[in-house]
């Protein structure tokens, strides 16, 4: 019986494998493959980058020039699934790779795209391992250590605090990466870190040990190099305990005001190092479109995705990329354009974005303080 069933399974597997071969986009369209977590515990970030990019593509295609088609695939924020998604997209005929959303998966995929010579632009994988040794991989976001350094400098130079506590997620390389950059720079500029605590999981966590430790060590400010979901928990739990800290977060914290059900008054006075200036006209238009399309507020991930498409669009136009080029032709055409000092892109997450040969973006970091529920540039 068991054998028969297994045979049945095999047959089913083969049918499924054969069923959806083929497909493909319209003629004259550049195929962009997207990878990010669309399911699992980090799905909200992957879906945001996917949706943000879709809005940009709609606009770009409406211009009537180069046409883009985006195929977003799920990687569950896992390297193995990321490589699977990548191979799947290669079968689909991907010409440019947009992704991955998370650093861990991106590091595994970048090695593949480097070997195949596929141009890769990631909206939000900020680890340096993503670009290291890969001339074809570019980032639209700041790198982790860079954010940590900028944050430490800003806190010191503006005299925001003398004693700082750090709470970071030690199972997450993004968070750990920023923390390490922050710690090194804090030592250099003489900023005192009085308490360093970690947590392992992003949801429904009890932070009392971490918050109390910061309080007992006399911290005036807590540096939060973490995503906005656990950060919102920290803000709520600290306020319940009656502690009054100043908070400073990085781009992962951007989105805290968009949380459904969150009392934004708790975020009053929080500093965020984010590239996404929500007050600009372009941003307001984007926010409106995003809300109409998805029913929720966009965060910085969505804006990164949006900017990625425009960066690719500008570069493709400049490099003369056409839809009939192969992926490696596109790659070799785009690399010199991206690294050209004369090439710069203005977007929602920064104006005059330029890229170095190491794949890292250079743009001015924007530090905002939340005042009356909106970002105010500092």
């Amino acid at each position, binding site marked *: 019986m068991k054998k028969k069933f297994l045979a049945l399974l095999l047959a089913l597997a083969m049918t499924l494998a054969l069923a959806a071969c083929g497909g493909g986009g319209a003629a004259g369209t550049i195929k962009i493959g997207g990878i990010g977590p669309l399911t699992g515990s980090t799905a909200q970030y992957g879906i945001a980058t996917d949706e943000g990019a879709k809005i940009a593509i709609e606009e770009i295609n409406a211009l009537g020039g180069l046409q883009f088609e985006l195929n977003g695939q799920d990687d569950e924020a896992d390297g193995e699934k990321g490589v699977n998604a990548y191979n799947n997209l290669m079968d689909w005929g991907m010409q440019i790779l947009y992704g991955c959303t998370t650093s861990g998966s991106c590091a595994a995929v970048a090695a593949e795209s480097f070997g195949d010579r596929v141009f890769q632009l990631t909206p939000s994988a900020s680890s340096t391992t993503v670009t290291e040794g890969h001339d074809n991989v570019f980032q639209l976001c700041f790198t982790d250590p860079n954010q940590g350094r900028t944050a430490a400098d800003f806190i010191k130079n503006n005299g925001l605090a003398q004693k700082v506590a750090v709470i970071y997620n*030690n199972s997450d390389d993004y968070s750990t990466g920023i923390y390490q950059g922050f710690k090194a720079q804090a030592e250099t500029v003489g900023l005192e870190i009085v308490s360093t605590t970690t947590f392992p999981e992003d949801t*429904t966590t009890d932070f*009392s040990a971490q918050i109390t430790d910061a309080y*007992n060590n006399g911290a005036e400010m807590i540096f939060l190099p973490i995503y906005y979901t656990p950060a*919102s928990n920290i803000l709520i739990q600290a306020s319940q305990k009656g502690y009054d800290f100043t908070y400073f977060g990085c781009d992962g914290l951007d989105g805290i005001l968009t949380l459904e059900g969150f009392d934004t008054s708790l975020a009053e006075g929080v500093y965020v190092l984010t590239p996404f200036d929500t007050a600009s006209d372009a941003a307001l238009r984007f926010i409106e479109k995003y809300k109409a399309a998805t029913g929720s507020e966009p965060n910085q991930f969505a804006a990164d995705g949006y900017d990625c498409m425009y960066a690719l669009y500008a570069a493709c136009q400049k490099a003369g990329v056409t839809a009939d080029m192969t992926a490696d032709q596109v790659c070799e055409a785009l690399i010199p354009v991206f690294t050209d000092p004369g090439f710069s892109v203005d977007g929602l997450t920064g104006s005059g974005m330029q890229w170095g040969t190491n794949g890292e973006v250079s743009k001015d970091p924007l530090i905002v303080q939340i005042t009356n529920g909106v970002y105010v540039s500092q």
Partner: protein
Amino acid sequence: MMTFLTYLVSGVSLGSVYAIIALGYTMVYGIAKMLNFAHGDVIMVGAYISFCTTSYLHLPAWLSVVFAVAVCTALGVVIEGLAYKPLRQAGSLAVLITAIGVSYFLQNAAQLIWTSNTKVFTSVVGLPSVRLFGGRLTITGETIVTVLACLLIMAGLTFFTGGTKLGKAMRACSEDKAAAQLMGINVNATISMTFAIGSALAAVAGVLLCSSYNTLIPTAGAMPGIKAFTAAVFGGIGSIPGALLGGLLLGIIEIFASAYLSSELSLAIVFGVLIVVLLVKPSGLLGRYVPEKV
């Protein structure tokens, strides 16, 4: 000293949430002899239902809890009927895998229904925080309610399984299903009833979990579920006071480990303590030792 008390209060608060989840686990395990891996996800569904009824329908908090309990009870019975009942004769591992399938199903269905965006749960507890020692020690209303709920549920379950006819039927099923059937007990109905109670407890646990630790996403139940399962085994699985004790200890150890030892290694410490305890007391703290017979 004050710091120690602060940590202790946090530990008790976290532990009592684990305890409520563990009580549900232990109930189901005790009677159906299966590890219901989907229990954590029923918690998540309960929290979402409560969130929706308060945020979208603007119903009062107590009514949202009633709704959550009702939906989860129904969900528990449906899951049991569709996925577990057909496997009653199969091995326990087959049911375990089905439970894992149900867990995946609930997580992904929740993502499709409520999206993956984090929802910040507004506490259903109206009680204000109590500040002691001139404000240096804060006990939140959520902590008080969770601890009370935990004790109440434990007392209720103890009375129910010990004193009522249905409860006795459950214990009979737990001891020997075939013999229980011969005594005229409807085993299937009893097991369905157990799932209904376990899921109702899960709904309460979900609401209290998210009232204390406010963020809610479709995978929010997974880790608390695993930890509560650990707590149930820690206390001696199948034992109602054991689940309470296991949950409380797990919460306190977790907070103390990250406060006094190393927050980086807090998980390793929690699970390490668990291993040591199980090696010393192989059937958990309050578990019954069942001698093997030939």
